[in-house]
């Protein structure tokens, strides 16, 4: 029985705010009382675990170990609800059903995995097992930018794909290809989200124009904000500053995710 939904967060370019968005979305959905998992795909450079205030040395086994049969999914899930620490915002997650699943499917390891024949079905089984074992409502995957094979796997397995874009020509061009790929891979729910939008733009107009170009809903336009840039890795911004415009727009995206049947 396929109960939980897989939500991938993707962007054409790097640094668009995928990790921040994923962590905050997962937190908001957990705050709404859902059982949530987050696959952290990047434990070398500052990734999601940092946003949750976790130290990578505390995290033992990874998704890779699981995929190689060296660990059970139970051993990998790291409870944020029990270990939430440091930060007024993060403290709100105490007792919530939110788990982090570290993995490092990137660089050298991805080629190794592909060579070993870990394919789409195996990855998918792993994700499904994660959902079943932890009885998850949502499993968020923070993907890598661009359209490499690993990312294509994440897109192909998604029930919901959130594409984050920055409002400029270069990013829109790249996003158009991602949108076509998502449709070609039959992703049932394609949601767009704009991040780092300069407040001087007319957001209503921007939303209309992007929806028009891609024929997909823009679930939120999140402003470029120095407050966020300053605070980002110290705490979960949307929990720490719920009244900030960025947080309000992010909650709109969370609402759109929760609204998907």
């Amino acid at each position, binding site marked *: *029985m*396929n109960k939980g939904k897989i939500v991938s967060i993707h962007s054409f370019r790097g640094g668009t705010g995928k990790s921040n968005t994923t962590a905050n979305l997962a937190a908001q959905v957990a705050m709404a009382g859902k059982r949530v998992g987050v696959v952290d795909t990047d434990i070398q450079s500052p990734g999601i675990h940092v946003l949750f205030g976790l130290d990578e040395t505390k995290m033992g086994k990874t998704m890779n170990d699981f995929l190689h049969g060296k660990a059970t999914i139970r051993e990998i899930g790291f409870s944020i609800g029990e270990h939430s620490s440091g930060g007024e915002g993060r403290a709100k997650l105490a007792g919530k059903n939110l788990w982090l699943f570290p993995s490092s499917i990137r660089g050298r390891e991805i080629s190794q995995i592909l060579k070993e024949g870990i*394919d*789409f*079905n195996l990855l*998918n089984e792993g994700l499904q097992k994660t959902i079943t074992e932890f009885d998850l409502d949502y499993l968020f995957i923070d993907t890598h930018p661009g*359209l490499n*094979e690993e990312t*294509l*796997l994440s897109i*192909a*397995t998604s*029930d919901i794909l959130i594409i984050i874009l920055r*409002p*400029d*020509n270069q990013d*829109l*061009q790249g996003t*158009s*290809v991602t949108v*076509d*790929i998502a449709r*070609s*891979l*039959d992703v*049932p729910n394609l949601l767009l989200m704009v991040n780092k939008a300069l407040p*001087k*733009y*007319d957001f209503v*107009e*921007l939303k209309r*124009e992007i929806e028009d*170009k891609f024929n997909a809903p823009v679930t939120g336009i999140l402003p470029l904000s120095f407050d966020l840039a300053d605070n980002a890795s110290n705490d979960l911004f949307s929990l720490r500053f719920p009244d900030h415009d960025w947080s309000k727009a992010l909650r709109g995206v969370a609402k759109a995710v929760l609204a998907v049947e």
Partner: protein
Amino acid sequence: MKSDVLNQLQKTAIFKNVSDDILAEVAIKASTRKLAKDEVLIRKGEKGDSLFLIHDGWVKIVTVDSKGDELIINKCGPGETIGEMALLDGETRSATVIALTESEVLELKQDVFEEILKQRSDVPLAIIRSYSERLRFSTTYIEKAIDWSQKTAEGDYSFVEQIQPLVEGAGSNDDKAAQLLSAFFAMVRRVKEREDGLKQQLEKLTFEIDQARRKQEFDEITSTEFYANLKEQARALRQKRAQG
């Protein structure tokens, strides 16, 4: 001089519906007062028992602000009437009136006025009529102000263009409701201007997607064997999920 007075009384709001023969009598019974510059005509807080018509010269209507400084609310000159309400309600004066220049005013005492009211039963009715007209006028304007406030709150400024002549026509009227309305109107116009200004500052972003490049990149990705396999597997997976 008395015919000037008659003229002036005819223009005074409360006498609007009072017949000329009565006003002529009122004019006769009014007494003339000469004021030296800086002489106090009315003192705030005193009981009001007369109306003044300014015949010559200028007076200032003043009050005292919170710091104790004199604050000039208004200046009145020839032909203008001060303190007319006192004739009817006898309330204490709400402001002080001081002569700005040497002046001549006509004073109509409340008791003299009441004598006339007693003798002529049509006068009270005429005064009531004047007041009810004024009240109706004020009420209409208050209703307008309510309506406009609601519209403004909703961001609907369409009335600004439509109502303009009505308010400007009322500009000469010394009625306070009309003054409120034109102040209100000016305020909304300013708010609208500021808002329009802000809207104009928002920039519109336009972008173009190079469709040929889009297709080329899509074809590059989807032409691999990896992709063909993935697409097949993804389709099977989605079918499986749909069946639950």
